[in-house]
């Protein structure tokens, strides 16, 4: 940090000298100097902290960070490493390790706000650890984990990728949720108004509930899983390849439904369909198919075929 500040200060001094050769001493130079000092002051206010904890198999790691991002990646050993960048001295990082559990908390001090109370975390955990992340506004990211993952935040965006055989729970108010390459998962996503995008997401249970956010699924619905995508007023779009096998049941109470893929009709439905508001049937091989339920009240539902590249 000192090196960075020193470099910034010397660079500012260099700019001032060059400018001084082209323009006369004026208020503008003073202004630039003030900006340079402020920049150096901002850099100096940031502090970096690192904590390490030794844990056993299937450890629990919990991070609560009101303002700022949290990123979790797998470590190579049985160590939890917490790297925190604190934006000011108005926030502290409290940590507690008991047994096989590590709790990290950003502790806001009096006068802290969204800027001065911000902490950005980069955390390495054993891949089999169970991870719980809370943030109000920062981005939440988790990748390459095998343990249970719970991500929760109001306006926090959520990005999860390359996770296998995990129980994944996500709750957001209006933050966008993106899942990429999440396989064999037990997945529950609740988002009130954030858009939810699932790309190559499969598992025994994939459930998305949204009030007004849109839901986009891109993938093949795996096999023998239950996929339930529900939104009150958001649009639901599922884009699947030709090889997909699924029993599909889609219905929108007031919105439109579109089906680009021919479905083999089923004799029985659990509801009385209204023309233009529902479609149902089997695509691919019924014997290995997943169950897909798409529900909306006023949003559109669109099942489309993924175009060959």
């Amino acid at each position, binding site marked *: 940090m000192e090196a960075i500040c020193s470099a910034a200060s010397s660079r500012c001094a260099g700019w001032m000298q060059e400018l001084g050769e082209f323009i006369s001493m004026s208020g503008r130079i003073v202004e630039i100097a003030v900006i340079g000092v402020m920049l150096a002051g901002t850099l100096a206010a940031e502090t970096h902290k690192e904590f390490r904890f030794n844990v056993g198999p299937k450890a629990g790691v919990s991070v609560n960070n*009101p303002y700022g991002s949290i990123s979790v990646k797998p470590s190579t050993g049985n160590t939890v490493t917490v790297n925190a960048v604190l934006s000011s001295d108005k926030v502290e990082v409290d940590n507690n390790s008991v047994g096989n559990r590590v709790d990290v908390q950003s502790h806001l001090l009096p006068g802290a706000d969204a800027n001065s109370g911000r902490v950005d975390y980069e955390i390495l955990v054993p891949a089999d650890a169970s991870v719980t992340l*809370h943030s109000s506004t920062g981005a939440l990211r988790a990748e390459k984990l095998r343990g249970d993952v719970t991500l*929760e935040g109001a306006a926090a965006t959520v990005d999860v990728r390359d996770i296998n055989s995990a129980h994944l729970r996500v*709750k957001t*108010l209006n933050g966008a949720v993106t899942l990429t390459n999440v396989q064999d998962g037990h997945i529950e996503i*609740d988002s*009130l108004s954030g858009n939810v995008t699932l790309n190559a997401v499969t598992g025994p249970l994939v459930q998305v509930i949204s*009030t*007004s956010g849109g839901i986009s699924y891109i993938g093949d619905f795996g096999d023998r899983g239950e996929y339930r995508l529900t939104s009150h*007023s958001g649009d639901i779009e599922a884009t699947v390849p030709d090889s997909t096998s699924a029993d599909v049941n889609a219905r929108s109470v007031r919105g439109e439904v579109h089906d680009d893929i021919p479905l083999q009709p089923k004799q029985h439905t659990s509801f009385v369909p209204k023309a233009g508001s529902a479609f149902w049937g089997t695509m691919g091989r019924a014997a290995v198919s997943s169950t897909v339920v798409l529900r909306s009240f006023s949003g559109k539902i669109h099942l489309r075929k993924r175009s060959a590249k």
Partner: protein
Amino acid sequence: MNCVELQKSLFEIEDGSSAEQRAHLKSCPDCSCLVAELNLIAAAAVELQGAQEPSPRVWNSIEIALRQEGLIRPQRHGRSLLPSFGSSWGWARWIAPAAALLLVTLGFYIRQHLPSAELAKNDVKPAVADVVADPALAGLNDDDLLQEVAQQSPALLAQYSDNLKRVNEYIQDAKNTVASNPDDEEARRSLMEAYQEKAMLFELALDRSLP
């Protein structure tokens, strides 16, 4: 100290039994029996917490109900709204939620262990209606929610207000659909999901994700 005074004192004294309480309990078998039963409920609630942790929503609903009753004050930084089990008389404040929790757990247990044929024989609609209780009845008050957000995180108030409006529309739509198609299992499920969304809104507002 008489019986009324003792029962009242159970809710007021947290830091241990007083000499007066102990003296009365020695001489009054009815109050002794009451305290023993309350201890049993509190102990069962503790075991339930460890063995079958309920959803945070349960605690949030209890918290909201307690706040409406004026039994607890709004949340402050670094201090839980919920009373601790640690103090020997702290359990007294848990009597109502613990009893409610036991009833809910018992209800779920009975429902899960009833044969499906027996469930089918019973009228399903009232059962679903029981599960999907109106949030207002469960103590989920919109004004309280917005007031809490305004205190804790004013910058998010507009977002919460907007989402609250949307989720109420969701619930109303789902209710209307159930009313027009009472035998539609999917419609009832949608209504439950709509309530689930509202419960999550309260959970996000009251849980630790807020600054």
